């Protein structure tokens, strides 16, 4: 009908305008807040190395969004919903919701298992789908788990990592949380694998939002206590969340395989670098000009680039070197 088409066009235009406004707002925020982190002076090798290890060039903007999330969106909207969900619904219902949502994710998980060459895990995914959709009544129950087929999650961000992609600079978005470029790209590609992108219920996006919303609230409810605990006990909650996100992603990417070689190599690090308390105070990283070099016998010599740092290998939690 003509009016219906006109309605669609208006809705589409509205969406474009809104996204245009959103982009404009983001750009303004970006420019005015000085979103880019100040790079440390190149002479300060430790600070430069630490800056690179953190891999967070727009940290001020990230912290701003983190503060919005943490002090506004979460306490006002997300957390109360998650707490209500957690308290009101009995465990069976919550488990059913989670099982149902996990089952709906099967095509995406299967596609990514295959793309990563994980045939065994792909077989498990198919088996789980077969069992849970039938015996488990449309995925509400999870008999497959009891029969030995464990649930696992996959997404295209993990596939990109397995193919060798680094995480990219850390980005924190309101509502979505940590979203580095690789994981955002992965999320977008996953929408193409997801059959529900193509099945539209009369052009109504309610189902898609309901699914996204329910998944988000379920996940938030699962980590209520953990996040509270981390917030209370960490020096810098933002940095703790960043580190936890990266470690968690690395675990998911590894698909349960533990490789000790992937951990930082500490065997060559000599920590006894100044046992002589009369040695001149080296303080090479304070930014002040160094007048006396540390005694050769006590300190490891700077390497060819003149780097004076102990640590030369970043911990994998930085997201650098993942997938290599």
């Amino acid at each position, binding site marked *: 009908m003509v009016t219906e088409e006109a309605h669609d066009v208006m809705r589409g235009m509205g969406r474009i305008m809104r996204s245009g406004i959103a982009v404009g707002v983001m750009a303004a925020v970006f420019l005015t807040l000085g979103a880019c982190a100040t790079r*440390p002076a190149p002479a*300060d090798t*430790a*600070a430069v*190395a*630490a*800056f690179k*290890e*953190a891999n967070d060039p727009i940290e001020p903007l990230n912290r701003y969004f983190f503060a919005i999330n943490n002090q506004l969106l979460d306490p006002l909207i997300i957390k109360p919903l998650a707490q209500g969900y957690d308290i009101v619904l009995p465990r069976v219902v919550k488990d059913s919701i989670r099982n149902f949502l996990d089952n709906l994710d099967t095509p995406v998980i299967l596609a990514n298992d295959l793309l990563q060459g994980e045939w065994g895990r792909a077989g498990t995914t198919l088996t789980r789908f077969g069992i849970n959709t039938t015996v488990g009544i449309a995925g509400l129950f999870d008999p497959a788990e009891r029969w030995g087929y464990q649930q696992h999650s996959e997404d295209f961000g993990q596939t990109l990592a397995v193919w060798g992609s680094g995480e990219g600079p850390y980005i924190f978005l309101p509502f979505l949380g940590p979203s580095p470029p690789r994981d955002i790209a992965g999320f977008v590609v996953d929408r193409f694998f997801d059959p529900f992108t193509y099945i539209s219920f009369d052009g109504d996006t309610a189902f898609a939002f309901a699914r996204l919303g329910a998944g988000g609230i379920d996940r938030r409810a699962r980590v209520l206590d953990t996040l509270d*605990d981390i917030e*209370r*006990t*960490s*020096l*810098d909650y*933002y*940095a*703790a969340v*960043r*580190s*936890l996100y990266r*470690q*968690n992603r690395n*675990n998911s990417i590894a698909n349960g395989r*533990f490789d*000790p*070689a992937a*951990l*930082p*190599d*500490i*065997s060559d*690090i000599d*920590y006894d*670098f*100044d046992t002589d*308390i009369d040695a001149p*105070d*080296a*303080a*090479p*990283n*304070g*930014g002040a000009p160094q007048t006396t070099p540390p005694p050769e016998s006590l300190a490891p010599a700077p390497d060819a680039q003149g780097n*004076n*740092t*102990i*640590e030369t290998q970043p*911990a*994998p*939690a*930085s997201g650098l070197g993942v997938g290599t």
Partner: protein
Amino acid sequence: MRMTANPPCTTPFFTAPFFTAPFFGRVYLRAGIVLMALSCLALATLAPSAARADESARQYVGDLGDSAIAILGDDTLTPEETETRFRALLLGALDIRRLGLFALGQYARLPTPQQREEYFELLADFIVAVYLNRLSSYSDEKFVVTDSIEKGSKGREVIVSSDIVFSDGTAPLPVQWWLIRDPDAATFKVFDVNVAGIWMAQEQRGTFASQIRNNGGQFEALLDGLRAETRLAQTGAEAG
């Protein structure tokens, strides 16, 4: 127990007799085979020491975990006594110096020696306060060591896997222990602990570096942060 393969038994010694045999005849062939057998025997007697070292690492972790759970689950102790004993256990087991310097990351050379010593003290308080808080709920559980694996090229590190088994049927919590051999005392020190996939020292490394960097590269900012956070964790423990 995981048996390590002995590559030398399978490569050069294996091939040597067959290369030399055509030229030097049967005598050398037999000698080669005897030599190979003796080498393998020698290596076989050496290999169990690696397995024995693994075993002692697992024993160490098993004892540590059991002691921790015993302290946390002892209802006869007052909170102060629990903290004192837990602190003694933790500080005896942890390699605070290495752990602390690793957690400073690229800023390991920043502090003066006095600041560094103060940092180790504060870090010890911080660890006890935070992890006593986090672990105080794990008092009714069983601790099971599952596996161990060597790490690093110098044979100084072992990673031991274990599970905390819950009495209420929740899935076991995997905990991994990154141990460094202490050659003098013929025992181990704990360098890092991985709970449910998260390495603790690596988590703190990012946080400490961030604290220093966002406060103009001043080390004192980290010390202040540690003091404040320890106080917060301690009052949280008293209140909760």
